[in-house]
Structures are given as C-alpha cells and as structure tokens.
C-alpha cells in the first residue's frame, strides 16, 4: 500500500510539473523570469524611456532618451564585459583599475564601472547565463566567439535605436567610428551592436619564422596566393629537414582556409554558407562543395603525405606555442598593422625575426568588423548609462587607455622622452580589447609615431565588401544549422588534416561529406540566407 502511495505521489508530482511545462502560462507569477523580461518588454522600455525622459526637458516621450545626462541622480554602476586570455587573473589590479575609471566616469557621466573580466573561451556561455539569470550585465563584448548573429537571433541584445538611444546618447561614438561602420551593427533594421574598433580592415596571409627561412636559404615573397605555399613549404622541408614543421593544423577543427582566402563566411564554420568573392558576386555557396575546398583538401592530403603537416592530429599544443619555440615555420592570420605589431613583438620576445606574406589586399568585410563589437544586454536596467559609457570611451582617451593597457607604473611605463609610446611589462594583457579613439591612444613600443598614420593608410586602401553589415538571421533554421555544424565537425578534421588513404579516397570522402551536408539541410539554409541577403542588398 505504501509503495503504491509513493508511486502515485511521485507520478502525480511529475505529471503536475509536465503540465506546468507544457501549458501557456504567460500570466503566471514567475517572479524572477518576469523581472528579467521586464526590461525587454514594451512596458519595460517605456518605463526606461520615462525615467530617461524625466531627467531633462531637452528630451521627451517622442524623442526617447534625453540627450542630457542627469548628474544629480544616484550614480548607476555600469557592468562592462572585458574579454581576456584564458587563465589570466587580474583581480590584483581590478580594484585599482575600477577606481581610476570611476575617477573619470563619475564627474563625466555620473556612473561607476564594474569591469567584468571574462575568458574568451567562456564569453558566449557567460553572456547567455548572465542574461537568462538576470545577473548584472550592461555592456556586452560581441565577437567571433560570441557572435552578433546568435546574440541578435535570440534577443540577447537591446536595439540601440529604441528611444533614439544611440542618436541621443552616443553622438561621439558615431562620429569617431563613422556611420558606415556603425551601420554594420544593424540587424533586421535594429541597431543591435556598434563596432568596437575604428580600423577593422584586414588582409589574409601568413606570418613566418624569417630567422629559419634565412638559415635554410628559402625566400618567401611578400605577396602571392595560398597555393604558392606549396612550393615554399616543400623547399623549406627539403632544406631544413624535419625538425621544424612546415604547417600545423592542430586537431583540424577550425577551417584554416578562412585565413588563406578572403571570403565572407556565415557562421564560424561556414555552416550557413560563404560568399567566395564578395567584390564580384554575392552568391552564397556551400564552401565544402566548391572547387576551392576540393583543391584545399587534396593539397592537405599531399602535404600530409610529404611530411609537411604535423604527424599527430591529437596534438593539443597550440600552433603559437610551436611557433614561439621555433618548431613551426608559419601560421595563417588576419594581418593588419596592429596584428603585425603584436606578432613582431612576440617574435622578438622569442628571438625570432618575423616575416609576412599576404594573400589578399586589405579588405573591410563583415567578418572583420563583426570580430569586435559592443552590445547592450537585453536585461540592462539603464541602457542610457551603458550608452553613456560607450560614448565616453570614444571621447576620453584616458579611459580607453586604462581599459587597454592598465595603470601607469603598474602595468606599463612611458618610453623615454615620449608621452604616447609605452613599454608594457606583461602584467596586463587585454589581447581581445578594442575600443576608444585609436588615433589618440598610446602606442606600444617598438612601434613609433608613424604607427597610426601607417594604420590609417592601410585602412584607406581597404576594399569595402558590398555585403558589409549584412547578418543572416538564422532563428528559423536553428535545427538545420546545429545539424550542419555537427556534420562539419565530423568530416572536416579528416579532410583538413589530409587523413584519407589516397586522393581518390579524399574525393570520395568529400562527396560523402557534401551528401551529409545536403541531408542536414545545407541548401535550405543557404537559400534562406541568399533570400535575406538579396532583400538586404535591395534595401541598401
């Protein structure tokens, strides 16, 4: 009898929970969730607008947020995500840095700042968990690993046009970045993010160990095609032996082809298609069904056979570690004056002279701009204060310098006789931080005063992609995109690491791969993406 009662009670409890789950209980009193959603609902927005509008008579209900900052109210604390390298811990400086920032923000925009350091490998999870859990988060770092398409599709960001927020509270930001760049953060007519960096142009290429190529008597041209790597890597292998690897793909999970050819990709794996040459044709294709990828897969098979690639595909050592220790010849990269300065500095620290080979001209693409952006979380209580912070970031160089370089005397010192060139001591590395007016910010030695003009010149030469600013909204295709990603994760490492038994086996495996992609709905996703793109282009 007791057993029956326990069973009945358990079954009843589970049934009740399930019913609760299946029912449409929008009217139920779910305290925590409703509180979280409040800021995003129309009612919530109106409340925010009211509070903002009430700060000054300059604004009004029609204009949304007031253009004036209320300096009399209780200071609001803006929580800002700052993405850093995994394993780093800045808790020792955090208090001092926040104190220094508050000394700027309090008198300027009447707010304090809580800097939230987030490891790059955790940024997507931490962002979504913070928003769904209604934790304090205001300014979100939008980047390749926390992509705008995903954040926008799932309503994690606030529309910065709502209540004329960007217009009324972010005029300096818009002026410094320029309208063309700012528009790159528009998704489906809503300003979901703003680019973080003034100069986003990049060129595809490699950086290589020039010390090693000089010793081996191999000359690498300054520019060429990725296919030229074939001869270079074979020459190097013949001259230098097997002590130094020519090319390294890790576990083959990232498509290295992305850094060799200037295509626009949708999704970090190209799971929503690619535009091979956006400057001539805006057709979206399945990358893995193109001749380009076929050539790449065959080349990787050849390189494996010829001993160019690393032997062990389970090796989890990073390519950068191999490069720094002189065991790897070259790595592919997005190159710009900024990244080149970083690689040159890294090389110098490891007694390696760095050389560069470019495969494209400077390009300003959606992928390059989307790499670093700022968004405002959908659960942000005071979007006006978050925007004030962003606006100040682009008008107050001191604030931007503190976030990027830390504190003078603690994390960096000025080079002798200069008040703009600094020497960092490695205690504060914000490799993924972008923000501020670059033209006015400090420059890290050994770069000199010509650094900014070089960068401006590079940016000026960049070819602007006709699809700059287009984002595919994949909300209706989440099932297909997930399954496609799984198929790519399954097949691509084998092809990219050249692990098939022969050229014929490689081609057969590639066919099987594409059949699996088709079965997963690749064509449907690409067709939907193309339709959205065509509509977007027509609206431009």
């Amino acid at each position: 009898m007791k057993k029956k009662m326990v069973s009945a009670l358990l079954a009843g409890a589970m049934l009740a929970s399930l019913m609760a789950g299946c029912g449409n209980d929008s009217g139920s009193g779910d305290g925590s969730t409703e509180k979280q959603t409040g800021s995003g609902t129309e009612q919530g927005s109106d409340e925010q607008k009211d509070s903002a509008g009430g700060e000054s008579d300059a604004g009004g209900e029609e204009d949304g947020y007031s253009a004036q900052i209320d300096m009399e109210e209780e200071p609001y604390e803006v929580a800002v995500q700052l993405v850093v390298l995994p394993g780093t811990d800045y808790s020792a400086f955090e208090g001092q840095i926040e104190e220094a920032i508050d000394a700027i923000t309090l008198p300027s925009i009447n707010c304090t700042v809580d800097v939230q350091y987030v490891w790059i490998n955790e940024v997507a999870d931490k962002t979504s968990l913070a928003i769904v859990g209604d934790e304090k988060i205001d300014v979100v770092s939008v980047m390749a690993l926390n992509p705008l398409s995903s954040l926008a599709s799932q309503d994690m960001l606030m529309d910065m046009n709502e209540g004329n927020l960007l217009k009324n509270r972010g005029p300096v930001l818009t002026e410094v970045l320029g309208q063309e760049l700012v528009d790159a953060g528009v998704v489906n007519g809503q300003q979901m993010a703003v680019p973080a960096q003034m100069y986003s142009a990049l060129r595809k290429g490699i950086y290589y160990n020039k010390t090693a190529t000089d010793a081996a008597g191999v000359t690498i041209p300054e520019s060429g095609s990725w296919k030229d790597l074939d001869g270079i890597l074979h020459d190097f292998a013949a001259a230098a032996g097997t002590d130094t690897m020519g090319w390294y793909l890790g576990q083959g999970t990232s498509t290295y082809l992305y850094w060799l050819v200037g295509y626009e990709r949708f999704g970090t794996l190209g799971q929503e298609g690619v535009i091979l040459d956006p400057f001539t044709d805006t057709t979206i294709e399945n990358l893995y069904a193109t001749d380009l990828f076929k050539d790449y897969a065959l080349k990787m098979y050849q390189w494996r056979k010829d001993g160019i690639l690393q032997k062990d595909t389970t090796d989890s050592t990073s390519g950068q570690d191999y490069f720094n220790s002189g065991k790897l010849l070259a790595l592919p990269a997005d190159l710009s004056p900024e990244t080149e300065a970083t690689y040159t500095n890294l090389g110098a620290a490891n007694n390696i002279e760095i050389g560069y080979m470019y495969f494209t001209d400077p390009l300003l693409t959606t992928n390059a701009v989307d790499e670093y952006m700022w968004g405002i979380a959908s659960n942000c209580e005071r979007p006006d204060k978050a925007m004030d912070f962003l606006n100040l970031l682009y008008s107050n160089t001191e604030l931007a310098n503190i976030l990027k370089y830390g504190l003078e005397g603690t994390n960096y010192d000025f080079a002798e006789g200069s008040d703009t060139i600094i020497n960092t001591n490695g205690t504060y590395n914000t490799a993924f931080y972008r923000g501020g007016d670059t033209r006015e910010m400090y420059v890290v030695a050994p770069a000199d005063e010509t650094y900014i003009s070089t960068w401006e010149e590079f940016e000026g030469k960049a070819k602007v992609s006709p699809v700059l600013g287009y984002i595919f909204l994949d909300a209706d295709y989440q099932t297909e995109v997930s399954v496609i990603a799984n198929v790519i994760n399954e097949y691509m490492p084998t092809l990219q690491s050249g692990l098939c038994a022969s050229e014929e086996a490689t081609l057969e495996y590639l066919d099987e791969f594409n059949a699996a992609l088709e079965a997963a709905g690749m064509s449907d996703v690409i067709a939907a993406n193309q339709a959205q793109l065509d509509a977007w282009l027509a609206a431009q």
Partner: protein
Amino acid sequence: MNGKKKRGTRTRKGFRHYLPYYLMFLPGLAYLIINNYMPLYGLQLAFKNFSYKKGISGSDFIGFKNFKFLFATKDALIMVRNTLLYNIVWIVLGVVLGITVAILFHEVRGKKAKRFYQTAILLPYLMSMVVVAYLAYAYLASDTGLINNSIIKGLLGKENGVSWYMEAKYWPFILTFINQWKSIGFGMLLYLASLLGIDNSYYEAAMLDGATKWQQIRTITLPLLKPTIIMLVILNLGHVFRSDFGLFYQVPMNQGTLYATTQTIDTYVYRALMQTNNMGMSAAASFLQSVVGFIFIVSANAIVRKLDKNSSLF
C-alpha cells in the same frame, strides 16, 4: 465515538513521537524540492522558442520543433545506438565484474593487503576524466605512445604502429576498458557492503555440509546479493540514455574520424549547440534523456515486480 477519540490521541502521540524524525527529514526535503523539483519548471523550455528578452514563460510555444535536430540525420541513429549499446553492455559488465571483484576482495584476509587493494582499485574512480584522457593518450599516441613504441614496434618488431585515434573500430573496446577500469572500484564497494552484511553462519553451515567455494557463491552469496543487484541495475537503467561526456569527448580527443563509435547523445548535443547556443534545443535533448530513463526504470521495475514482487523498488 470513544474509539475515534482513542485513535486521534494515538495519532497525536505518534506524531509527537516521530516529530524529531520529521524535523531531521526537513533539510533533505528542502534539498529535493529546490534541487530536483523546482528546476522541473524549466522543462517547458524544450517546447518553446526561447527568447532572452521574453523570458521562459513569455517565449513562444513551438511544440516538438526543438526535438527535431536529435532525429534530423543518420547521425542521430548512430548516436542513439551508441548511447544505448554502451550503457547496456556496461551495466551487464559492471554487475558481473563488480560482484566478481567484491567476492575476491571479500576472501582477502590480510589487513594490509586489503587496504592496498582497496586503494588501488578505487583510485581510478577518483581521477578526473581529463587526467584519464592523457593517461590513455600516453598509451595510445601514434608516435610517442607506449603501446606503439614499446609493444608493437619494440616487442613485436613491426614497422608501423596502430593509428588508434584514426580507426573507429578500436574504440568500443578502449572505451569499455576505460569505463570498467574507472568504475569497478566503486561498484565493487557497493556489492562488498552487501557481502559484509551476510551472516557468516550460512557459510559455516555450508562448509560443514561439504559445499565447495563455487557452491557457496552460487547458493548463498548470489541469492543474498540479488536485491542489491536488482536495485543497482534498475537505478543504472535510469541513465541508459545518458553518457559520460568526459569519457566520450575527452578520451577520444574529439577526433572526427572516431565519431562512428564515440558519438553519443551528449557529445552530439554539445557539438551541435556549441555554434548556436540554443537553450530550447539543449532542454529538449535533456528532457528526452529523462523521459527515456524514466521509461526504462518503470519498465524494468514492472518486469522485476512481475517476477518477484519483493525485489521490486516500488
């Protein structure tokens, strides 16, 4: 009337008598409600197009759409097959090996030897799967691994080693070996606890009657272990649609070539949703796992109840 009064007084007395026990039960009850029942509210996520702006209750209801990705390709069939087969084999192996080792352990008389064996056999259970993955790698790496270098090339004199991380066919055995090596210590402990509860007089009587060791095991040990075996099997069946993520993701080093035998529902969900970060689809996968586990538990218990009513869990 008088009888009712008496019963009421007895109930009150009974309640007063058991009050300390009820109070002791409260923290556990609170834990169960907070940890196990309140999160059930989130199950609705599996049927909704979750929007961070609208929240859980405000998001749109989309029926079973979130479950679709679990059955969308042939990979789905492979992952279901792998998850179920591995679990069923491991449950059977776990019972057989756990009991065998527990009986052998029970026969060890020396205190020091007992302590040594206990520590040695339990140690793998306490290891993190990341450590286990690197231990496996130390043995299986194609160039530097112990098996290829010392055994296949060294002892057998063969020129080429085996590419363990490129051939899916080896992994059912490797994963089974690692799973049993890691979990056998804990399984053995559970059976040993039951063995220690068996009255020695049964064995003494059997010995006087001239029973051999095997006869003692067959006629005394195993029948008396039956309730423990049934309970553990039924509980394990609740996890039959789940898999140890670390074992299936870390140990094979996430090698795409091995997916045919290493892809399970947990790794599939992780790989698929790493790109989209979709809460509804994650909830759907988890919900399905719970439902399948629940069905397995109820069915297994029903079968046991039919065969032997006293041995069933509920």
